[in-house]
């Protein structure tokens, strides 16, 4: 078994076995606590610039297939697991995890104490790290981790966005594909009669967001991150979505600028990075969380209904309110130059803001991932809400 090392910028080094492509990689090391969905995670463009550690000890059990992807390729810079399955088993499996990583030139490591690593990251915070199969010298590896650029201030969206606009037409479809009765799926059904035209700003959009939009009756056009608002307006959409994406929202000031011009013009759906961009556009600040939220089990309370949704999460930055947010008086609103803003959703784990409501404009803005994939479908209804906003909004 070939050895590999994982070296953290703070000097911590783990030894393990080589996994995937033989090489060396660097990125911000984060952990994800989802028990399923490693393929979706690997192909989520929001992981650009990051090495992902899975806390679930067995990864690769069900292999990979061509349908469970969130984009056209793997974006994670590296992959850290306790144990990758040598032989996958699932009727949809087409390839094993290791081969998949190999083909995508992704460097991984396995056979280390991922729980110790997770506890370390939890206590000390996420940091740059190096996985190497080729240079096992711990000191050099730590140095490389130290000198690597972090994700703060880097426009990673620009590296994952599409080059040209394109149309998206695929919905979630029947599931499972071969089942006689497909009643088991929880898909948001179509809303209204006409198709809503939605323009999606691609900062690294997950395909399931697009599928969910199609499911509720949208015709979707995806545009590059740098598209200006005027161009979008000429496309005559019924609504605009600001997608998820990797990295620091402050590094994409052009996106906040575009959003400012579109707010109030048409209903907006902002998810994850899109939500942070909304925050910046409203004049709020964003900050980096110690170790981020990367999970499929986080409870989020909708402060309007006081109901809890179990959500899929993947972000390192969050929106900050000028004064500490007090969940006891969630009705409190904030005056911005785009009118009143209230916190609509809050994390029950750490109290951080999970959704913002613009009380004077049609905006739906969520820090977490209502499209799930991977993760629970509790929040899929929000796509319907967005469709309703487009149905009732009169430009």
């Amino acid at each position, binding site marked *: 078994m070939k050895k590999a090392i994982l070296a953290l910028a703070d000097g911590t080094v783990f030894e393990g076995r080589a996994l995937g492509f033989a090489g060396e990689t660097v990125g911000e090391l984060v*952990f994800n606590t989802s028990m*399923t969905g490693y393929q979706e995670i690997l192909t989520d463009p929001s992981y650009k610039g990051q090495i992902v550690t899975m806390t679930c000890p067995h990864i690769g*059990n069900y292999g990979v297939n061509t349908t469970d992807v969130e984009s056209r390729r793997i974006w994670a810079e590296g992959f850290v697991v306790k144990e990758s399955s040598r032989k996958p088993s699932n009727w949809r499996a087409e390839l094993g995890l290791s081969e998949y990583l190999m083909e995508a030139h992704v460097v991984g490591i396995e056979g280390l104490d991922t*729980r110790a690593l997770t506890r370390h990251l939890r206590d000390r915070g996420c940091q740059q790290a190096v996985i190497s199969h080729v240079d096992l010298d711990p000191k050099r590896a730590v140095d490389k981790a130290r000198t690597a650029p972090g994700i703060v201030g880097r426009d990673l969206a620009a590296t994952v966005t599409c080059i040209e606009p394109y149309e998206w037409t695929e919905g979630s479809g029947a599931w*499972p594909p071969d089942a006689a009765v497909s*009643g088991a799926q929880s898909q948001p059904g179509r809303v209204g009669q006409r198709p809503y035209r939605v323009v999606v700003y691609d900062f690294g959009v997950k395909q399931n967001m697009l599928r969910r939009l199609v499911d509720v009756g949208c015709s979707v056009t995806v545009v590059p991150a740098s598209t200006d608002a005027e161009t979008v307006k000429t496309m005559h959409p019924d609504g605009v979505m600001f997608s998820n994406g990797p990295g620091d929202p402050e590094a994409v000031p052009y996106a906040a600028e575009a959003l400012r011009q579109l707010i109030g013009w048409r209903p907006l759906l902002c998810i994850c990075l899109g939500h942070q961009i909304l925050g910046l556009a409203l004049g709020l600040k964003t900050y980096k969380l110690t170790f981020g939220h990367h999970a499929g089990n986080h409870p989020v*309370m909708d402060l309007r209904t006081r109901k809890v949704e*179990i959500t899929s999460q993947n972000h390192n930055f969050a929106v900050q309110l000028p004064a500490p947010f007090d969940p006891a008086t969630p009705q409190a609103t904030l005056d911005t130059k785009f009118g009143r803003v209230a916190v609509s959703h809050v994390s029950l*784990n750490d109290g951080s803001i999970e959704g913002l409501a613009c009380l004077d404009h049609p905006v739906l803005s969520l820090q977490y991932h209502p499209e799930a994939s991977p993760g629970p479908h509790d929040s899929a209804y929000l796509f319907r809400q967005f469709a309703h906003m487009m149905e009732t909004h009169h430009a």
Partner: protein
Amino acid sequence: MPKRTDIKSILLIGSGPIVIGQACEFDYSGTQACKALKEEGYRVVLINSNPATIMTDPELADRTYVEPITLDVVEQVIERERPDALLPTMGGQTALNTAIGLAKRGTLAKYGVQLIGASAEAIHKAEDREAFRQAMWKIGLNTPESAVARTLLDAERALDRIGFPAIVRPSFTLGGTGGNIAYNIEEFRRCVEWGLQASPVGEILIEQSVIGWKEFELEVMRDLKDNVVIVCPIENLDPMGVHTGDSITVAPAMTLTDKEYQLLRDAALRIIREIGVDTGGSNIQFGLHPETGEMVIIEMNPRVSRSSALASKATGFPIAKIAAKLAVGYTLDEITNDITRVTKAAFEPTIDYVVVKIPRFTFEKFPGADPTLTTQMKSVGEAMAIGRTFKEALQKAVRSMEIDRYGLVSLLGLDRGVPAGANGEELAAKVRDRLKIPHPDRLWHLADAMRLGLPTEELYQRTKIDPWFLEQIREIVRFEDRLRGEALTADLLREAKQLGFADERIGQLNGMDGKTLRERRTNPSVEAEAVRATYKRVDTCAAEFEAKTPYLYSTYERECEAAPTGRQKVMILGGGPNRIGQGIEFDYCCVHAAFALREEGIETIMVNCNPETVSTDYDTSDRLYFEPLTQEDVLNIIRVEQPLGVVVQFGGQTPLKLALPLEKAGVTILGTSPDAIDRAEDRERFRDLLEKLQLRQPASGIARSVEEAARVAAAITYPVMVRPSYVLGGRAMRIVYDEAGLMGYMTSAVTASPNHPVLIDKYLEDAIEVDVDALSDGRHVAVAGIMEHIEEAGVHSGDSACSLPPYTLGQSIVEEIRRQTTALAMELGVIGLMNAQFAVRDGKVFVLEVNPRGSRTVPFVSKAIGVPLAKLAMKVMMGKTLQELGFTATRPLDYVAVKEAVFPFMKFAGVDVLLGPEMRSTGEVMGVDGDFGWAFAKAQAGAGVALPQGGTVFLSVKDQDKRAAVDVARHLQRLHFRIEATSGTAAYLRDQGVDVQTVNKVNEGRPHIVDHIKNGEISLVINTVGSEASHADSASIRREALQKGLPYYTTMRGALAAALGIDASRRKALTIRSLQEYHARREC
């Protein structure tokens, strides 16, 4: 939402005695519920007939009724206590059925009692197969093709649509009683008839077989605000076709993509909403076609279950406790996660380890029972293990079972490789044959198949076990080669330990002894080469938040999170998986030990591997190690924790057999010394002890060959009791009446050899057996309870009913027993509990055995006399005197407590129900009343036996019993029973002036007695048999009585007690009283 203030008092129904399919998981859930509701300030009223439960400790509820769980009794409880609400979801199927029964007969409406947790409609929708199927159809979910039938004709009609193989299940039962698979019309008819009988409502469900589909379970929680979370997805290694209680199960689910898992999750949410379970936990089972992913819903339990106990232990999410809080109005977001103390219960646990549960079977106790695993549950217990990988958890679970297998040992002798000269083809054929049916040893058969080179694809086709699991098992098997062939370097050992290999197993493979290996591994000459266990925490969140509760499991990784404290601490060793002979009673004692130490301000460390128990609740002790109870695993923990001492007295044989090795390893054993334990267990030493005390013992001898056995038995004189020396719990123990019987036993049941001698004791016929529990501090002995067995000596004490105080023994005999018990305890130097068994015949007292440890009867005696014996024992072991504890003698009771055993015979077709020296009961109940007859009748009712109030009694007894039969017959005649008897018994009775009808024996032509029973003409069966040859003739009578649910007695003393019970219930109406009331009366 805050908690409800419109209800003040809540009735909880327990699950009654431990039976297959309903074990101590319901004590765990009920105890959590009691505590949670009390904590919220509600008045809790509890009924449970099982005295061995923690929940029936009088401190846990405001009113505790140890009374039979029947509609009449519960109605009386309601009438006396006037609860505002009834929480029916904590006591298994028993509680659910009782609640539905009370709703149907109008009791709940009459007294204004509200069902909380689950409404009657929701329970009906989930439990009634047809209603459930329709509900699923409505929300677009499939269930297996099915039909409900109430007659054989209906069933055969439905078969046209369903086809073979078909599954036949009776409605409204637990543990899949009567659920069977039929492959042809003949089997089908048999299954239908059986199922119709087994169902309390005479209804069966016939289902399309989804045998071989992948099986999953989801534990779902819902609150009044409709927040729903999944606590844990569990995957069954054994695919559909094997009852989930008999399956090896794994958490989290291992072979599902996110898309597939979310499909199950979405379905689960819709199901709990459609069924309408308002609050609390439910368990939903799914089948998934392995090649298409097609999903079917198998069933839903609208209550906490064995699986929810498992899921709670597997994740650290206390389902029952939270369900209780949800039932009184809280929502998930208002409840704090105990483990992190900063997050909320509104989340889904995520785990960074693997949990494996393996069922434990006891087919060896039921000769003739078919060990094929089917949809009817047959296991009696389970062990759970936690590891960082499936392989580690699996191997830990295997050694947790205590079946003398420290890993996937070869059953074909292939541990050192395929032996030279062995015919590989022949062996492969053998193993293929064994893999045809699901069997308790399937895991081991698979490992052997792999050793013989059978490919995964073939093994999958034969077993339908997912190839992922098969490959994991193969990785374990493959690693054996390295352990056999390579030098045991630190690196290799570390890898082996990470794969879960036990030291003993590595030793087996490598030809080294486990102890030497352990020594070298943990204390090598070079410190860097030490391979030592580290401990990780179960934290509900995969380390995302800090775990405040020390709930630990071992692994062999870099970081150890044990963080032991510097406090004074004591380690309690639990009892491991439930089995016949060692069950909830021992867990009860361990839990009490923990409570006692907490009261004394000493830190408690619990070690156990049984997920059903209260002892493995992280709340019970300060620190919980969920670990196998082997020497290796226990020493590993001691190394980290360094406790003051270890308690081995309470967990039954499991910890007791570790006492000597632990002491040798330098560990302090608290209480009675291991030497004293040995002195009581070693036959020779024990004989010396009795001689010294001048106490009488039945004549006995040891035989190391067949010839010697014959000589010894002849010298002792028949009948004799024979047993192998190396087994426990009465295994393979038999009474033989003559040399022919002895020879039969010696040649078929045991192999006597110099290393495995056979023990032979004089069997005292018609002796009365007495059980005594006592407590000693070394200076003073307090005899806590003297119990007279109902059944005569020769019936295993665990299978015998008993009465506290004695109901026929004279005062002088009782005093003599007290004196002998005291002398034995003093001589042995007992510090803590001691149990002694005596036989009384012709006014003489014989000592049968002495166990210087907590016994099966400790909880029964504690509940009966109102003194927490195990707790006091623990305090005595910590140096308190009985004087200080205020317990030096028991005052006489002015009521009678009767314990009765409960048997699993219904689950094992073809097994004879006769009682004998081998224990076969799974649980017990207690009946308390001012009158012996009533106490006995209550105990019978608690055990599910309703004594008849009239009708015809059938009597057929062996010659020695004929005299006693006259008493019983006269008694019953006075109570206006008709008497029917077989010719010999009838003649004798008639001679004595009893009016009796003669009925044919089965071989005497028709109509015979079995016809009468089948036709419902008999209401009580009394049948005793002598020599083994006569057993077969009458077995069909007893079996038929069992099937018909008729009360039957196979001993004369049992029959007489039944007559007294019937008599009492004729004289006086049923009255009930709570334990608190009984105990208060004693105090004033």
